[in-house]
C-alpha cells in the first residue's frame, strides 16, 4: 500500500489525527524554545555535522580503532554484514548461555533487523522494556515514531490493553497508574533476564566505549541485572573522540524532546566483574548508502526524531503510513536505499518545505535528498520501464494526500493559509520564526517537468 493510502486510513479518525498533529507540534515547539537558550546552538549543529562528515570519510579507520579499544577493555566485538547475520550472532550468544528470555531496550536497529520475530521463532521470549515499546509490542505493532513509539495511541486504548494484559482496573486511564502497572510487570522481567540487549547511541573510537541514553532507565535496569549485555550498533554510530560526546549530548535530547539531556546517559567501557559485554557492528545497507554520493549524508542521523515532529506530512499521516522502520523525512531518504521499489512512494510524501533540514541537529539536507530520490526514481522509470514502471507510477500517482497537503502548503502559500486548514498546529507552523524557505517549484510543476 502506498503512503497516501495508509495516510488516508490514519486520517479517518479526525480527532485522533488532529491530536497527533498538535502533540508533535508541541514537542517541536519545546525543541525551539530550549534551542534558543543556547547561544551557540547553530555552531553546535555545524560542529556535529563536521564531526559526522569526518566520520563518514574515515569510517573504516574509526571502526578498526573502536574494535581494538573495545577488545582491550574486554568487550567481544562481532561484525554482521546484514540483518540475518546480526540475528544469527545474537541467537548464538543466547544459545551459549542457554538463555530463553531476554529484555531489550529501545533499539531501532533490532527493529530494522526484525530480531524479535526471529528470536521468538527460535523459542526466545523477548520483552521490550521501554514503556512505549512494550505497549506496541503487546499490540503486535511496530513503533510509529523513533522516540515516542506509542504516540499514535490514546490512553483509552492503552488502558484497555493493560486491563487485558496486566489486569489493571477496567476503565482506569490514569497515565501514572498505568505506568506503575507496567513498572511492576517489567521489574519482574528485569529480575529474571540473564541477557539484556540494547541499542547504541554513540560508539567512541578513541576509548572503545559506547553510550546508551534513556529517560526511563530501562536499558540500565536490564543490563546491570543480566549476566550478558549485547549491544547492537549500526556502523555509522561511531564518533572519533570522547570530547565529541559533549557536542552530541548537548544536541540530542534538546532536539528530541526539548529537555536539556536524557536523565540516564550510560557509558559502557568494560564489563563488570564476572559479566560479559558483546557489541554487534552491523552494516545492513549502510556501506551501500555510503557509496551513494548524494545520499551518504543520511548516515549522519542521530535518531532524535525532530524531523518527524516538525514534518507537516508526518504529523498528519502518522508513522505507520510510511511502512518503513524509520518513518518520517529521514526514513523517506534511508528506506529507498534499502529497497527502492518497496519505498518508491516515500520521497513523494513530502512538501519539500525544508523544515526537517532546518531542525536537524546534524544538518542533514533531508529535503534536498528527498528531491534527489524523486529524480532517481523517475529516472529509473525511464531506464527500466518493465520491471518497476508500475510501482514508480504508483509512487507518483498514488500520493493524493501528499499532493493535497503540498498544494496547500507549497503554492507560495506559507504566509496566507486557507481558512480550512488554519487550525493551531498549522497556523503556528506558518508563524514559526525559522520559517522554511518556499520551495522553488511546486510539486505540480515539478511533476509536470519530470514525468516526461
Amino acid at each position, binding site marked *: 500500500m502506498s503512503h497516501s493510502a495508509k495516510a488516508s486510513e490514519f486520517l479517518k479518525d479526525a480527532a485522533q489525527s488532529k491530536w497527533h498533529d498538535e502533540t508533535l507540534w508541541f514537542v517541536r515547539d519545546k525543541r525551539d524554545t530550549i534551542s534558543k537558550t543556547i547561544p551557540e546552538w547553530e555552531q553546535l549543529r555545524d560542529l556535529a555535522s563536521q564531526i559526522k562528515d569526518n566520520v563518514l570519510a574515515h569510517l573504516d579507520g574509526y571502526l578498526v580503532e573502536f574494535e581494538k579499544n573495545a577488545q582491550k577493555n574486554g568487550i567481544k566485538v562481532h561484525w554482521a554484514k546484514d540483518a540475518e547475520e546480526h540475528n544469527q550472532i545474537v541467537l548464538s550468544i543466547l544459545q551459549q548461555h542457554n538463555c530463553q528470555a531476554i529484555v531489550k531496550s529501545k533499539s531501532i536497529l533490532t527493529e530494522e533487523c526484525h530480531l524479535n520475530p526471529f528470536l521468538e521463532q527460535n523459542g526466545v521470549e523477548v520483552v521490550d522494556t521501554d514503556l512505549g515499546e512494550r505497549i506496541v509490542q503487546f499490540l503486535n505493532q511496530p513503533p510509529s515514531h523513533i522516540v515516542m513509539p506509542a504516540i499514535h495511541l490514546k490512553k483509552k486504548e492503552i488502558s484497555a490493553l493493560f486491563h487485558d494484559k496486566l489486569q489493571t482496573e477496567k476503565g482506569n486511564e490514569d497515565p501514572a497508574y498505568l505506568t506503575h502497572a507496567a513498572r511492576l510487570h517489567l521489574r519482574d522481567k528485569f529480575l529474571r533476564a540473564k541477557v539484556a540487549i540494547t541499542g547504541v547511541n554513540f560508539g567512541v573510537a578513541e576509548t572503545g566505549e559506547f553510550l546508551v541514553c534513556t529517560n526511563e532507565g530501562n536499558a540500565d535496569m536490564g543490563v546491570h541485572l543480566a549476566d550478558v549485555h549485547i549491544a547492537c550498533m549500526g556502523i555509522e554510530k561511531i564518533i572519533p573522540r570522547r570530547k565529541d*560526546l559533549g557536542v552530541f549530548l548537548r544536541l540530542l535530547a534538546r532536539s528530541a524532546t526539548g529537555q536539556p539531556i536524557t536523565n540516564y546517559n550510560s557509558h559502557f567501557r568494560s564489563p563488570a566483574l564476572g559479566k560479559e559485554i558483546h557489541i554487534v557492528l552491523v552494516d545492513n545497507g549502510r*556501506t551501500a548508502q555510503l557509496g551513494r554520493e548524494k545520499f551518504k549524508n543520511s548516515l549522519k542521523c542521530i535518531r532524535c526524531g525532530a524531523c518527524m515532529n516538525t514534518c507537516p506530512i508526518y504529523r498528519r499521516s502518522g508513522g505507520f503510513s510510511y511502512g518503513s522502520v524509520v518513518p518520517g523525512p529521514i526514513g523517506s531518504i534511508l528506506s529507498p536505499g534499502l529497497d527502492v521499489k518497496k519505498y518508491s512512494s516515500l520521497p513523494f510524501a513530502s512538501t519539500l518545505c525544508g523544515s526537517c533540514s532546518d531542525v536537524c541537529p546534524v544538518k542533514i539536507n533531508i529535503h534536498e535528498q528527498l528531491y534527489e530520490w524523486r529524480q532517481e526514481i523517475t529516472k529509473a522509470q525511464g531506464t527500466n520501464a518493465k520491471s518497476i514502471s508500475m510501482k514508480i507510477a504508483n509512487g507518483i500517482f498514488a500520493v493524493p494526500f501528499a499532493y493535497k497537503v503540498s498544494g496547500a502548503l507549497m503554492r507560495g502559500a506559507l504566509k496566507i493559509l486557507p481558512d480550512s486548514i488554519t487550525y493551531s498546529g498549522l497556523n503556528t507552523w506558518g508563524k514559526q520564526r525559522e520559517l522554511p524557505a518556499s520551495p522553488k517549484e511546486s510539486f505540480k510543476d515539478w511533476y509536470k517537468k519530470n514525468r516526461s
Partner: protein
Amino acid sequence: MSSRDSILDKISSIKVERKPLPEIPDFEVAEDLRELFIRSIEGNKGEVIDQTQLKEFLEINRFIKVICLAQEIKVTANLALPDDAHELNDLEVAIIQGQFGVAENGAIWLTDENMCLRALPFITEHLVIVLDEKTLVSNMHVAYQKIGDQHAGFGLFIAGPSKTADIEQSLVIGAQGAKSLRVVLTNL
C-alpha cells in the same frame, strides 16, 4: 572473507572526500553555576536539598532499607552492599557520592567507584546524590575535559529520576528506574 573484512573493504573502496575533524571551543557560560544547576535539576524533576532536609526525608518516611556510600553522610540504618544486585530489589534509598555536576543540564557524573554495584542508582526506589558544589562545571564540553582520559568500566551522567511520557505525552515520574532524585549540595 569474514564479514569484518568485507565491510571494511567496502568502506575503503568508497572514495569520500577527506574532511578534517573540527576543534571544539569551550562555550563557557557566565551565569551563576549553582543557581543554574538547581534550576536544571528542578526542570528534570529532581530536587536539590541540604543535609537537614535529607535527614527529615529519611526520618519522616521511616525508611529502613537504606544504603549509604557517601562518606560525609551519616545515617542510622545502613545496609551492607549485597554481592548480587538482585537483592537490591526492595531497596528504599541509595545515597551515593557524585563526582561533579553540570550546570547547563543538571547531569551528575558517577562511575563504578561511586556506585559499587552498577544497578544501584537505577534499582533503588529513591536516589540521593551528594555533590560538592565546588565541583560544578558549566557545560558538557567542560565536563568531558574534566573526565579527560579517566578510565572507568562504567560511567553515568544522571540528570533526574526515571521518567516517561509514553502514554499520551503525560509526564510520569518513576518509570523503570528510581522514582525520585534528590541532590544534596554540600560546600566543604
